């Protein structure tokens, strides 16, 4: 169970003590509750949750006898000591356990038959195991109106609450959003937000996972299922490159719930999920979901069976030279099979990946890398560029934890963000990240165990900064780099050796390819889209898209093959830190859809080449064979917790992007995972969807003759944006404008080049606010 801290019983110099008459040992500093659990003795707990922070000793459930100490001791807060004699099954301990459970249950409604937690409830389980069989409480129970909506996604049932403080401590100490608090006192204590408004937070759903009773439940999951009617599957989140390990709850072929794993991955998410990763699963049956193959003909669109559609795709591709574009969320299998087509079924095909070319990042990626879990031990954490809160959400929690553990947090970057409050941050001018990096070099050199987080998108656009940062890290042998990636499976695609999308774009422009196959690729919604718009304008060949959701590109395609989503298919993703992790299928997906890798295999069959694999695992082995980054990595080796790549996922040195050209004001673009595309497709997250806004400081707005609420378009040397709404805000730096990537209609993507080089934009008002 995740509730106890993992104990490493293999380290040297352990403390020996006696546990119920047995001689056992645990590392010094281990709390008794954890040490006992590691030795097979379960001490019941409720308030203790080592991931949240130090013990608070509030529930009093873990009382044990320690020889020589007066009274019973709380095992959650008593560290092991040499020759300590601990007894966990004496009459006094039993009496104490009975006593605590009796009072906890005195006012508990015992509505387990209608409680979502029933069957997976620590209070229920521990009452059965440790509690009295009957209650002596004859007074009327405390009643409260139930439930309250603590937020749009979390229901609070105050009657069931046992005041363990886990949720409050999560909010205060882990997420540090300052939202939750305990109101009133004594038996009237109740959980609420400080303001009384709905709980606003990027990580709010974790309080459901840590609640040891049914007081906090997920509204989308309310009354949906019982634990014995579902199957739980360990998987990985594919919404951002962090690669959080998740658990999918599946019933009747549908994903009903996503939670943190009961056995978290300490190297990645430590059991915490962001709200997007937790609740976006209903996107798999959203309106935009493609549930049947679409064939676009002169007479109009028609749907087709999967068989017919694959046949149709093969017919369109046969005899042509294809350009194959692989999207950044495609799995290693999908990308690998697509790449293999070039050597077999589609001879001469040009295969490339979407996403940031990033040739300038080679020196950074070559340095010793850290996993997110390593941030815990750092004495200095540097954040170079980016905005982890928005782009790699769970990385934020690791940073906050490192700060809590005493690490110094510092950094630089062009945009204000939520983590700047953790330490000294240098705000750099857009395009001048190098200056910020230079000012951090001294701190990196002086630290004992520094971890340098760097933003892929920001540094890819500024080769000088990337070079300087690599030099600063290399100067300290103890320093490690940690990439804050921009793309879900960017590392995986690079590790397969796929070139950037420019290869296909050039081929389209040059006319050397006469068909396009898009595998989860959406060039018309990505940076550089203006170039693609132009290139596709005059492209006469067929465009075939393998996709799960409708987007600008599937609208343009001649044939759309419906694919499964990350909640439905098997596959492998490589996280931003090069961790190879496996998606496991939970839900079945629509009748008319199939996994992308299966569609590609079927396509190869139709084109007359029979691939030597029939399962995803076999496909993984086949497509990674001979790729040095994947040396020694098999699906079995990846196991449940994943393994790091054997070598960094490098790309051949692409040319560095040219400096910002044109005229106008610098634009800083930020990807939004929280409130981004996934949130828009999800009914549960609808209220979090980030609007398409162009934010700027007051003087900057005045200089461009725009006001708050105006609708504007941007123009850069790369193209024109969609409409954005101006938001004038204090606290933003002057002389720069900020816009989101992944906003509805992808307006910002239009002005950005694919290589993320800094751009200057002109702001044109099209409609007054």
């Amino acid at each position, binding site marked *: 169970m995740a509730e106890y801290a993992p104990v490493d019983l293999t380290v040297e110099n352990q403390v020996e003590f006696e546990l119920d008459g047995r001689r056992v040992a645990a590392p010094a500093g281990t709390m008794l509750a954890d040490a006992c659990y590691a030795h097979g003795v379960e001490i019941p707990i409720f308030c203790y949750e080592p991931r949240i922070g130090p013990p608070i000793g509030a529930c*009093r459930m873990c009382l044990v006898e320690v020889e020589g100490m007066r009274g*019973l001791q709380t095992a959650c807060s008593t560290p092991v000591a040499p020759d300590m004699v601990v007894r966990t099954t004496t009459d006094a301990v039993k009496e104490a356990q009975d006593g605590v459970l009796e009072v*906890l249950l005195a006012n508990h409604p015992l509505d387990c038959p209608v409680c979502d937690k029933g069957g997976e409830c620590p209070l229920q389980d521990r009452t059965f195991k440790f509690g009295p069989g009957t209650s002596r409480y004859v*007074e009327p129970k405390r009643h409260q109106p139930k439930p309250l909506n603590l937020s749009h996604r979390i229901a609070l049932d105050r009657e069931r609450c046992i*005041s363990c403080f886990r949720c409050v401590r999560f909010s205060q100490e882990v997420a540090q959003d300052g939202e939750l608090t305990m109101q009133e*006192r*004594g*038996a009237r204590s109740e959980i609420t937000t400080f303001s009384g408004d709905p709980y606003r937070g990027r990580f709010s759903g974790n309080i459901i996972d840590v609640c040891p009773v049914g007081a906090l439940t997920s509204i989308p999951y309310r009354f949906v299922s019982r634990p014995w009617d579902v199957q739980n599957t360990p998987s990985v989140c594919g919404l951002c490159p962090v690669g959080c390990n998740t658990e999918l709850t599946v019933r009747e072929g549908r994903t009903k719930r996503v939670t943190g794993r009961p056995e978290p991955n300490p190297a990645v998410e430590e059991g915490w999920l962001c709200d997007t990763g937790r609740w976006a699963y209903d996107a798999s049956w959203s309106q935009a979901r493609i549930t049947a193959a679409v064939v676009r003909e002169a007479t109009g669109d028609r749907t087709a069976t999967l068989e017919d559609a694959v046949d149709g795709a093969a017919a369109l591709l046969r005899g042509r030279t294809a350009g194959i574009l692989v999207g950044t969320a495609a799995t290693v299998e999908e990308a690998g099979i697509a790449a293999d087509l070039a050597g077999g079924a589609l001879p001469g095909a040009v295969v490339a990946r979407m996403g940031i070319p990033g040739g300038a990042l080679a020196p950074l990626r070559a340095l010793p890398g850290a996993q997110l879990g390593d941030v815990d031990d750092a004495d200095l954490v540097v954040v170079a560029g980016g905005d982890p809160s928005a782009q790699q959400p769970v990385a934020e929690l690791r940073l906050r934890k490192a700060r809590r553990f005493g690490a110094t947090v510092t950094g630089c970057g062009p945009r204000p963000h939520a983590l700047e409050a953790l330490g000294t941050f240098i705000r750099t001018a857009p395009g001048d990240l190098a200056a910020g990096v230079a000012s951090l070099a001294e701190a990196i050199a002086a630290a004992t165990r520094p971890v340098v987080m760097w933003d892929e998108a920001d540094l890819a656009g500024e080769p000088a900064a990337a070079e300087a940062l690599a030099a600063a890290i290399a100067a300290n042998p103890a320093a490690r780099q940690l990439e804050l990636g921009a793309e879900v499976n960017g590392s995986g695609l690079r590790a397969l050796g796929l070139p950037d999308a420019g290869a296909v774009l050039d081929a389209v422009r040059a006319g050397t390819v006469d068909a396009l196959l898009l595998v989860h690729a959406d060039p018309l919604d990505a940076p550089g889209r203006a170039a693609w718009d132009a290139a596709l304008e005059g492209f006469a060949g067929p465009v075939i898209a393998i996709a799960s959701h409708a987007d600008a590109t599937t609208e343009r395609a001649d044939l759309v093959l419906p694919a499964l989503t990350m909640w439905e298919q098997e596959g492998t993703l490589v996280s931003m830190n090069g961790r190879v992790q496996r998606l496991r299928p939970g839900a079945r997906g629509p009748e008319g859809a199939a996994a992308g890798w299966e569609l590609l295999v079927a396509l190869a069959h139709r084109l007359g080449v029979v691939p030597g694999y029939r399962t995803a695992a076999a496909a993984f082995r086949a497509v990674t064979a001979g790729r040095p980054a994947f040396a020694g990595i098999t699906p079995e080796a990846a196991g449940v917790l994943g393994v790091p790549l054997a070598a960094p996922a490098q790309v051949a040195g692409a040319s560095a992007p040219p400096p910002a050209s044109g005229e106008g004001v610098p634009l800083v673009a930020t990807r939004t995972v929280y409130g981004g595309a996934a949130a828009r497709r999800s009914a549960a997250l609808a209220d979090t969807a980030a609007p398409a806004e162009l934010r700027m400081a007051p003087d900057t707005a005045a200089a461009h003759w725009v006001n708050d609420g105006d609708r504007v378009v941007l123009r850069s040397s790369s193209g024109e944006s969609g409409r954005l709404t101006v938001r004038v805000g204090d606290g933003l730096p002057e002389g720069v404008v900020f816009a989101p990537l992944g906003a509805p209609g992808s307006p910002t993507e239009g002005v950005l080049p694919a290589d993320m080089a800094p751009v200057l934009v002109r702001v044109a008002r099209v409609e007054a606010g």
Partner: protein
Amino acid sequence: MPILNSVYRHREAGRPLTELAAYREAGGYKALESVLGETDADDLQYAFVRSGLRGRGGAGFPMGRKASFLPKDSRLPKYVVCNADESEPGTFKDREIMEMNPFQLLEGLTLAGYAIGAVRGYIYIRGEYEHQARVLDAAVRAAREAGFLGKDLLRSGFDYDITVYRGAGAYICGEETALLESLEGKRGQPRLKPPFPAVAGLYGSPTLINNVETLTALPPIVTRGADWYAALGPEKSPGTKLFSISGHVVRPGNYEIVLGDTTLRELIFEHAGGLREGRRVKAVWVGGSSVPVIGEEHLDTPLDYESLQGIGTALGSGGCIVMDDSGCIVRACLRLASFYRHESCGKCSPCREGTSWFERILQRMVDGDGRMEDFELLESLFRRVSGKTLCPLADGAIAPIRSAIKLFRDDFIRVCQEGSPRPEPMLPASVG
């Protein structure tokens, strides 16, 4: 034995000493003047140890020893916190000191600060003591203007200032770690110990916490000498103590007596003027409401820590509540149970749920719906809650009730069967 008004100067002077001039006239600040720059901090601490002064807040821990627990060389600043959250039912002695004699408290707090090398003193005063807080505010201003607080006190190089902090009215904030939480601006609830405040207290810094009465006793200990103080009363608990006496007595109020010199009977019948005509003592909570109740048979016990412990109760805060035979002991217990239920902070489960359960059972008894098995149930609950909580609040709730059931079992049985009629006249209950 006679009343001895020798430690608290307003009592010795027979008038309030709220003006600095008046306080100085009564010998005020002589102690600080004699110590600053003259006496080594360690020597001063040792004088406190030798005086034998025990904490007057309730627990009775030796003050000097507590001061000695603070680390001598600390990287962090040290603090002294004066616990003025006087909330124990029946206790109003600190209130008198702060109201009548604020400067002696400030002087004592400054002496304690000097002895441990503190940078600042805090007075955490309960929110209901608004008048007393204003008196203290004025006194702090006057002391600062006169150079008794601030930078370089009396040109000794010692910097020290005092902040008066108003609580929001919670009994639990009299518990030292809950007080610190509240003083830090957080929800007032006890911390897990260890670490103890002497090591990691206010803002994680080494902190000495003492009661108002304890700190106020320091200036005379300095001027008259630790030996003088140690010679007052019994060896193990010397000095004088302010007793607040209330309830069914003719002259309720505060009385300063030498510990061990005076019996409970003398306190009630000589100092407090005895009971109303024709009444007999039924029950006495001698050290505030959190101590076991005693009956008439113990009236001749001398008032000191050891003697009271010897008869199964405690000196506590010295808030002596007397009930005569007109009162109903079960109702009194219900009133106390309601108080502790209301004041339980809710952090630890046995106290949060237990105090509420005690009240429910006693309410049923008073309503005449008590059952014989309730005695067994209560005793079992007391056993399961007592000693298993985060702080002593629940034990404070249990002690008076458990002892009352033992001592007045017949009353309880009768009430269980017949109920307890609401006595007339009755003041409206102020605690919900």
